[in-house]
């Protein structure tokens, strides 16, 4: 040891970081709101339980969202001695997380799992997961990265299992816990290798260190980067690390599936964008081609896997795998345009994914289950659910007049301009395959039904809740209609979101310098 460590190096000074309370306000709001929601849920009485607890959670998320929106275009690139960066890139993703959580808080309001696990606990865990995601999108330090990664994961494991008496929910929770923890462990080992190769945990210091040395030849660093990317690929359900996705998404309570299917992907992609601008930039040649291959495999596997699914939650899980592939193209391209396209598509994806999940929740509560068969005759029964579902399916497939089309055009454009034209071709091929399953849903909704009445295997009773409500809840219709309306609005007037996306792209370019 003495040969390795000169005397004096063993005593290392630890300086406590100074905490800037102002810039960190949104994090304190979210953490305080999570604790407050738990306390409010202790107040007795049905009114307090049914109204006060959700309202506290919604108020917390609204407050955090307002702070994020005000901070936009006033970036603070170094918070907590360089551990966090609250720049436009992070803030746009933070708004996505908080808005998705708001929609999910509304969707979950009257769901069964809330009664099972307790309203305070459910909303508190939801807000904690949002806190983890907002921290992850701002992380500029390996320690902050790992900690926020776990802060977003652990509440989601519990939320997946929150239907405590349903075996599928428990199975989903346990599977997610084991796979998610495996991903964290692999990622952590990668972080340890990167730390060993560079001797620092700060993203900028690592980038400086790698820019000075011939990094590509250091096996320690390359192993570390590889393990880090594998861990992140697990979390973002990138093929071939996606096998857990359909099982977990199907078993989890539907509002939880709606939340994690969009936001965990967004969080991991935000982190990937930041990593690719900073510490991973010097070794870009080593990993860009790997990610490109993974993205194209993901697009094919996700779209082909979705074709045969009868459960809509499973279908949307596979569709989510495919969407992760599309989004990954933005990271691979690594230009300002690529990041802008990624941010735009992410915003649209949140909308066009939340709409269908709101409809699925409504169908489940009506006792029709989450199957494709539960959609039959929806066009005649409940047009206010059928139209949003149709619009969102068309948007997910990427047809014009929707935001999904503009997003895909931007991604293809970024791929072609960034000399990754074959990835653009993959996106187009994937979209063509995806029409096969998205249009099946549209057909089920609008085609006249003949055999439904005489079909004894129709799962009308299979997933039925004895206390099922016959009519759809108005808040579900509101979320579905709002999501579909915004999807169309973004297809017709994409300019205002494009401006924001361009800011994110510019931030990305500035990070690289």
């Amino acid at each position, binding site marked *: 040891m003495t040969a390795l460590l000169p005397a004096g190096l063993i005593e290392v000074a630890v300086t406590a970081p100074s905490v800037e309370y102002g810039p960190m306000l949104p994090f304190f709001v979210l953490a305080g709101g999570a604790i407050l929601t738990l306390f409010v849920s202790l107040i007795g009485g049905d009114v307090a339980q049914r109204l006060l607890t959700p309202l506290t959670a919604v108020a917390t998320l609204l407050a955090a969202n307002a702070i994020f929106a005000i901070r936009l275009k006033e970036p603070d690139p170094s918070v907590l001695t360089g551990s966090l960066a609250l720049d436009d890139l992070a803030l746009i993703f933070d708004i996505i997380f908080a808005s998705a959580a708001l929609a999910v808080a509304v969707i979950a309001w009257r769901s069964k799992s809330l009664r099972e696990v307790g309203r305070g606990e459910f909303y508190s865990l939801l807000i904690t997961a949002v806190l983890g995601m907002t921290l992850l999108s701002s992380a500029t330090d390996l320690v902050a990265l790992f900690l926020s990664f776990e802060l977003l994961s652990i509440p989601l494991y519990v939320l997946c*299992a929150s239907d405590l008496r349903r*075996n599928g929910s428990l199975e*989903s929770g346990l599977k997610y816990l*084991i796979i998610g923890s495996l991903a964290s462990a692999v990622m952590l080992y990668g972080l340890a290798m990167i730390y*060993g190769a560079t*001797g620092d945990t700060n993203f900028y210091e690592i980038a400086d260190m790698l820019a000075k040395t011939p990094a590509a030849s250091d096996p320690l660093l390359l192993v570390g980067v590889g393990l880090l990317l594998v861990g992140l690929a697990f979390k973002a359900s990138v093929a071939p690390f996606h096998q857990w996705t359909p099982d977990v998404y199907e078993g989890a309570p539907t509002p939880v599936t709606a939340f994690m299917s969009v936001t965990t992907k967004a969080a991991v992609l935000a982190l990937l964008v930041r990593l690719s601008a900073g510490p991973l930039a010097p070794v870009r040649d080593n990993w860009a081609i790997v990610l490109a291959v993974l993205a194209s495999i993901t697009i094919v596997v996700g779209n082909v896997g979705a074709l045969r699914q009868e459960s809509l939650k499973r279908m949307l899980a596979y569709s989510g795998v495919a969407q992760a592939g599309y989004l990954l193209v933005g990271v691979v391209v690594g230009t300002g345009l690529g990041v802008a396209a990624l941010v735009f598509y992410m915003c649209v994806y949140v909308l066009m994914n939340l709409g269908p999940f709101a409809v699925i929740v409504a169908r489940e509560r009506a006792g029709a289950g989450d199957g494709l068969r539960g959609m039959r005759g929806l066009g005649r029964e409940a047009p206010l659910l059928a139209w949003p579902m149709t619009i969102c399916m068309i948007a997910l497939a990427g047809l014009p007049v929707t935001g999904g089309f503009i997003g895909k055009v931007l991604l293809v454009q970024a791929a072609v301009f960034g000399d990754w034209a074959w990835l653009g071709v993959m996106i187009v091929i994937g979209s063509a395959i995806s029409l096969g399953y998205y249009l099946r849903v549209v057909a089920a909704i609008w085609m006249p039904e003949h055999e439904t009445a005489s079909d004894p295997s129709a799962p009308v009773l299979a997933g039925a809740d004895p206390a099922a409500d016959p009519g759809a809840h108005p808040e579900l219709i509101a979320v579905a209609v709002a999501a579909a309306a915004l999807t169309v609005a973004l297809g017709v007037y994409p300019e205002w979101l494009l401006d924001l996306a361009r800011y994110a792209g510019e931030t990305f370019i500035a990070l690289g310098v």
Partner: protein
Amino acid sequence: MNIEWYIALSAVIFSIGAAGLLSRRSPLVMLLCLELMLNAANLALVAFSRAHGDAAGQIFALIVMAVAACEVVVGLGLIVAIYRNRLAIDIDAFTELRDGRD
């Protein structure tokens, strides 16, 4: 003593954990294997921290221990909930969610 020995040991422990996670069927043993993987990373972090003379790695390892405890708490809680539902505590028995049931 060179740092290579510490890294080699940590790689061996990590591999034992990963192999155990893939081959064992009891969720309890799988949680133990996860702990092995996390602690292998801790060993690497502390070894690198000494080699670089930088405290960040040791602090990182402490934080990892706290996070590992949180994961195990959630995992054990889930296993208790599954036991209460009278399900077999065997990972191969969890086949309610999979492709191609319909």
